[in-house]
Structure formats: structure tokens, C-alpha cells
């Protein structure tokens, strides 16, 4: 049995309500960019990273955690997941265009998937609405652990999901008599129809923006959301897998002046120069997965090729793709040619940056949230395990026994939590 499930019982005995001050030293440290470094110490205070540097003098009362032989990274950031969602209820099928509905309302905060993500070192995740609608809704960036859902949320309306390709047409019937406006004739039914739905929604929003009645807009969250996208105040999270969908996405971005973050981009190896020129980040499909929606053809080294061209790449586990844990996907990207540092960046600082939460998570730097992972080995080793996971300064997961590091047992506060795994 995976020991981590037993841990909370072992460590919660003396739960304090506030995070302790802890100095982490002796580990090899990856700060979110570049290589692992020796001699970097990290001071955690009040749930934040108070200091990063060599030879920090621990303040009075601080606990010191000796991490010789261990590897320290920022908590991982997964830029696309379906954590906490019941897959049957992520698509609002009463309408094809629902850009304004927040997925946050569908997130079950105590879902076990959060616990699994935590055990794999993921402390921040983007949860996305489903891809059945042309505009699926607003995603949310949240911590995988925390006292209340409200406290866990970093950004409740992050990115407006737009899906190209066959997914929004799947299961929609073509017209066969009767009333064409009936709910049984859900549109679109073709790729062209999908793009028309997008254009028509943006044309409409653009006209409403031009008409300038701001008060009236307050009552129309759908149009308001689309206008935010047109004003580049909201990133359009665009799922585009095949060659033609990627091209279409870039064309739409140019046409409407959108700020995109591209999701999956399975056939990006066909559009490297266009993607590099457009300058949008790509949140790549998990590299271990071999079969993809839309019959998109993956290439083994797509992520490496994108990184070589200077495209900002992050790695996701995605929704229903059957991916491995995020750190294993990063390791697969290395097997496919991506350098180790780029792979680690693609699951920490880069996704934090893409999600617009780099001031809170994704790096080990002063002032950022104390979200960290202690690994027993280089995290990209197939043998690596997240031994200790710290979220907001709380020690959420720690090793069961004093295996070579007794200090790990006594330091740090366990969280007062609503997550199932860490309940008292």
C-alpha cells in the first residue's frame, strides 16, 4: 500500500493552526529555471518563501530541515487537468456558446484526484471546462490542497476555453426533418460550423462593444466575457490538435486580435515556424500518450522541436487522455529529446507564467507561496518519489518513516484541511 495514505494519522497529532518557520537546507535545488544547484537554502515563513540563498541564519524558533541527498523543486503546476470534476458534468449542452460559465462551480474540492495529484508533487492545477462546446467556459487555477476552496483558488476565471476540431460536433445530428430549432438538432455538425460559431460570437460581441452601452453589458455575462477576450484581458485557451486546427486558431487570433494559449497541439511539429512567429505559448499534450482525439498524429519529439524554436512550452496531463502523473510526462519528454532543465521548467515556472500566476507559484523565490516538493532522487528519474510536499507552508505529505532523515518527521506543520486525505 502506498504509505502516504497513512501519513496524516501519524503526523496530525499536534496540529497547529499557523505555519511554522522552517529552513530547508542541504538539498540540490531547482528554483524553477536552469539547473539544480548546491548550496541554496530556503526559508519558509508564514506560508511564504521568505528567503532564498546561501547560508541563511535560521531565525529564533525556526526548525531546520537537513535535506542532504534530496532534491528540492517548486510545487509542480499542471496547466490543464480535470481534477475534482465529474466527467459526466463538464459540458453545458444547452448551448454551444457558453464562454462565461465558470468550471469552479463544478469542482468538488475533496475529490480524491487532488490527493493523487499532491502525491505526485502537483500543488497548483488548472481545471478546465469540457471541450464539447465551441466555447466551454472559464477555467480555474487552484491549489491541490488548502483549508477552504476559496483559499485554494488563485484565479477563478482564468482563460476562456475555445475548442476547434471535431469535438464540438461529436454526436450532433444533421437535419432530418421536423423543427430545425428543436433541441435535438444541436449544432454545429462540421468543422466549418465550429469556426462559424466562433466568428459569429465574436462578431456579435464586437458589435456590442462598439455600441458602447456598458451598463447593458453588465447583464450579459456571455458577451462581457467575449469582449474581455477581444480586449486581450482574457486569454483564450484554444484546443487545437490537428494541423488545420492550429492554422485556424492562429488565423482567428489575427482576425480578432486574440491572446491565445494553445492546448494540446498534437500536430505542432507541422507548424513550428508559424507558432514561433505568433508567439503564443503551447500547453503540450502529454508525451507518453499515443492516441489522440481528432486522429491527430503525434510526433515523438514535438515538445523538443517547439522548445528549439523558442516557443514557450508547458506540459499538461490533460482531460481524459490517459496521461501518467505530470512529473512522469516531463520525464517522457526528456526521453523524446527535451533537455532536463526545459522539462522541469515546463511543469513549474512556464505553466505558472502562462496561467498568469507566476507571482504566486512555479518558482522558489522570495515572496512566492511556500509550495515545494522534496524528492528522494532527481525528479525525472523513473524511481523518484515526492517524499515531502509543502503547500502554503503546510507539510501536506511527508515520508512515513524516518528513512535517513529523522528531521523530516518533526519539522513543519500539518495542514488544517478539508482534503479527504488530510482530515483529522
Amino acid at each position, binding site marked *: 500500500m502506498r504509505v502516504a*495514505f497513512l501519513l496524516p494519522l501519524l503526523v496530525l497529532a499536534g496540529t497547529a493552526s499557523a505555519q511554522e518557520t522552517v529552513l530547508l537546507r542541504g538539498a540540490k535545488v531547482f528554483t524553477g529555471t536552469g539547473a539544480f544547484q548546491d548550496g541554496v537554502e530556503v526559508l519558509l515563513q508564514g506560508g511564504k518563501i521568505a528567503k532564498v540563498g546561501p547560508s541563511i541564519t535560521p531565525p529564533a524558533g525556526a526548525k531546520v530541515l537537513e535535506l542532504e541527498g534530496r532534491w528540492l523543486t517548486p510545487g509542480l503546476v499542471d496547466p490543464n487537468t480535470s481534477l475534482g470534476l465529474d466527467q459526466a458534468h463538464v459540458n453545458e449542452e444547452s448551448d454551444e456558446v457558453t464562454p462565461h460559465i465558470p468550471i469552479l462551480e463544478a469542482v468538488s474540492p475533496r475529490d480524491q484526484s487532488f*490527493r493523487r495529484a499532491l502525491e505526485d508533487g502537483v500543488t497548483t492545477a488548472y481545471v478546465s471546462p469540457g471541450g464539447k462546446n465551441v466555447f466551454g467556459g472559464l477555467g480555474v487555477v487552484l491549489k491541490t490542497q488548502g483549508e477552504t476552496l476559496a483559499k485554494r483558488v488563485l484565479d477563478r476565471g482564468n482563460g476562456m476555453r475555445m475548442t476547434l476540431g471535431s469535438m464540438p460536433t461529436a454526436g450532433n445530428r444533421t437535419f432530418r426533418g421536423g423543427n430545425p430549432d428543436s433541441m435535438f438538432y444541436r449544432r454545429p455538425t462540421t468543422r466549418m460550423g465550429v469556426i462559424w460559431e466562433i466568428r459569429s460570437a465574436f462578431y456579435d460581441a464586437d458589435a456590442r462593444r462598439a455600441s458602447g452601452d456598458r451598463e447593458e453589458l453588465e447583464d450579459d455575462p456571455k458577451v462581457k466575457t467575449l469582449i474581455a477576450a477581444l480586449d486581450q484581458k482574457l486569454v483564450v485557451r484554444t484546443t487545437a490538435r490537428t494541423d488545420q486546427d492550429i492554422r485556424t486558431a492562429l488565423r482567428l487570433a489575427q482576425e480578432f486580435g486574440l491572446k491565445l494559449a494553445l492546448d494540446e497541439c498534437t500536430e505542432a511539429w507541422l507548424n*513550428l515556424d508559424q507558432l514561433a512567429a505568433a508567439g503564443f505559448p503551447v500547453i503540450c499534450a502529454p508525451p507518453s500518450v499515443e492516441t489522440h482525439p481528432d486522429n491527430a498524429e*503525434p*510526433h515523438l519529439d514535438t515538445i523538443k522541436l517547439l522548445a528549439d524554436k523558442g516557443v514557450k512550452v508547458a506540459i499538461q496531463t490533460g482531460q481524459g487522455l490517459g496521461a501518467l502523473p505530470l512529473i512522469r510526462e516531463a520525464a517522457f519528454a526528456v526521453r523524446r529529446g527535451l533537455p532536463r532543465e526545459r522539462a522541469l521548467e515546463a511543469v513549474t515556472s512556464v505553466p505558472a507564467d502562462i496561467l498568469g500566476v507566476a507571482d504566486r507559484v512555479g518558482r522558489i523565490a522570495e515572496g512566492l507561496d511556500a509550495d515545494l516538493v522534496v524528492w528522494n532522487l532527481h525528479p525525472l528519474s*523513473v524511481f523518484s518519489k515526492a517524499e515531502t510536499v509543502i503547500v502554503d507552508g503546510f507539510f501536506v505529505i511527508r515520508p512515513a518513516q524516518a528513512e535517513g532523515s529523522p528531521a523530516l518527521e518533526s519539522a513543519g506543520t500539518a495542514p488544517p484541511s478539508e482534503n479527504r486525505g488530510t482530515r483529522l
Partner: protein
Amino acid sequence: MSANSLLLSLALAALASAAPAQDVTVVKCGTLWTGRGEQPKTDVVLLIEDGKIKQIGADIEVPWNANVIDASRHFVMPAWVLAHCSGGLDRENENIPMTPYLTVMDSLEPAHPFFEVARRAGIGVLHVLPGNTCQVGGRGVLLKPYGQTPEEMAFVEKAAMKVSLFSGRGSRSAHLLALEKGFQDALDHRKELQRQRKEWEEDKANGATTEAEFDVEAKLDPLKKPLLDMLDGKIPAYIYVHDANDVPTALSLLEKYPLKAVLVLGPRCYKAAALLERWSRRNPGKLRLVLDPELEFTEKDPVTGDETVVCPAKVYWDKGLPFALTSAEVGGRSSGNPALALPWWQVGTCVRYGIPEDDAIAAFTEIPAKILNRGDRVGRIAVGMDATIQVLKAPPMEPESEVDMLLVEGQVVYDRSKDPRVKALTGTSETR
């Protein structure tokens, strides 16, 4: 070109590009790891003659006619050995439950992508058996993942019989009853012939028959003979044990019949590990275990909803029971996870759950070799053993590792630099 014919032509291209067998091959190894209990050695030369390892050492004179493989920047280790799989077949299960007379040889597709993936993954020896749904599915073949015909691939054509305790299409009890009835029918058939022979002996003594000979073996129903071979222990039985409550059934079969059995354990069988351990102590050396590819198994408590993840391999390891690991067929029959098709991933999973690295690697090399009765030929690298080895960019668990070359009995059967699919699936649209 259709997807299938593309696969076929790619596979044939791969076959054509493999180097022909040479009598003498030398592998200059940057690092050589020979097997469990050994430290990796640097700058070692392997001398291979007629498919066998003839010499291992630092100062070996390279014969003038040797085919030299420069692996001086590589990590060389034994090829993986897959003790049980059902890949590379047209279909793996017949739709009648008792088919001991079938053989996998008749269904093998040498150009099947399964073998291509096996070569790319460094698997040098595979045991392909029928699937898990028939009571008795037929006989498997022990083979190398290379060759243009099944005969060319096969080491042993009718290596073992597949038996399954998994009742995929009916009640458990009906399945087990039918299985035992099948066994009894075959035994009764032979008993009847033996009775007839006795009659014939009496008749002959009395001069009442003109029949010159009555050979029971020759008169056996060819449809039943393979099953009798298995029941006599002439060929091993690979018994698929789906669930923990099938374990006692399997053990009772082992006690009732003189089977040479290998138990192929489904992921939930770990709950009967204590039973297996006790049985193994009572019958030392008789229990041979192969594990299903699903090595991380999630169970949900029906009341609390809490999830527990179990690594069955670790449970057996804790009980001191040796086992062979397996990898899934492409497409991952167990969970759709393609990583399960990769031996290094399976070994890595075991190590993450606390099994020592050496033991986990042995479970995919040395132990399956022993289970397949080829422990003296494959699974380790030693003088006199087969040169069935893999040449990797880095130790297999390193993130940058990749199989660059696979040798089976001294013959290069995979060379990544000539792998058409790797070429087709890497690079940009311009380099393609």
C-alpha cells in the same frame, strides 16, 4: 496507402535493414552490466561466436573477421525476457472454450507492430500464448521478435499450454467445472484406450485378434493429446489466475495433477499472497509466478470512498516470492496506458514501491528466463550464454535512455539509427 500496408512495409523495411548474422561479433561496451548482484564494469569487450558469448574482458584481441559494434559510449545489459503475452496475433481467444489443439504458430503475424515495439523496447525473448478467456486456449510459442515467418521467429514452437481460470463469459463455477471436465474427459479417453489395450492383450494371448499392435499413444485423439501432454507435465501449463479467489483453485489443480505449472497472476491476486507463500514453503521450488502488467492497482473503499494504491509486485516481494514481470501489448489491454508496454517503466514502478533495483530488473531478465527454462541461455550476460543483449544510450532507468541496438543470439535485430518509424515520427515536416 492504408495504415496496415504502411505498417507492413515499414516493418519489412526494418527487417531488411537488420545486419546479417556473422560468425564473430565484438561489442565494445562503454559500460557492461551482466546481471543481478554484479557491479557495472567500464570499457569491457564482449566476444561473440556463433551467437554465444565466448569471452568477456578488457584485453581481448579483436579477430580480423569480426563484425565490430562500437558501444563505447553505451550501456550494455541483458535483453528483457517477456514470460507471458498475447501480442502479435490475429486474435488471441477462440470462441469455443476448450481448444488445447490450437497453436499460436498458426496465428502469428511476423509483421505485427507488436514485435516492432518489442524490438524497440529491448525485449529479446517473448513467450506468446493464447489469451485469457478460453478454459484451455491452446499452445504458445517461445520466440524472438524478429523473422519473416513464424518458423524463423520460433525458438520452441509448442512451448506451453494456456489454461485460464477467468470466467469471462459465464459463471465462475460453470467455468471451473467445464475446465475440470475437459481434463477428466481427456484422462478418461486414455483410460478407455488402456482398457482396450488390456482386452487386446488378452485377446492376443487367446489368439482372438488379428491386430498386430495396439499403441495407446498412437490411438490417442489428436484433439485431446496436447491436453494429456500438459496433464502429464510434458509441456508446462500457464494458468491465468484472475482473482484472489482463483488462487486456491489453481493450487488445488497443482496438487491434483502432476502439472509443470506457471501461475499468471491478475492484479487482485495479491490478496492471496499469504496462501501462495504457505504453499510455496510446503512445495519448495514448485511455485513459478508471472505478474499481470498492471503494477499499480487502485482500490476504492466502498464505504468511505478512500482510495488505496497497491503494487502487487511489492506484496509478493515482501513475502519472498520470486516473480517475473510482464509488459502490456501495445495499446495497453489493462488500462490504456502505453507506458505499461515498456519494461523499464514496469521495473521503475516496482522500485518506486520499494523493491531493490537489482531484483526488479532480474524480474524482467533472469527470473523469466528461468521460468521459461532458458536460465542457462538468456537473462544474464556470461560466457557460454546466448548473446541476447541490448545496447542503450544510458542505463535503462535514466530519463535519456533509449535502446539503440538489440542483439538476439549475436544477431543485430534492431538498430535505432535505421528504425523507419523513429525516422517517420521525429523531426519537422521538412526533415520528414
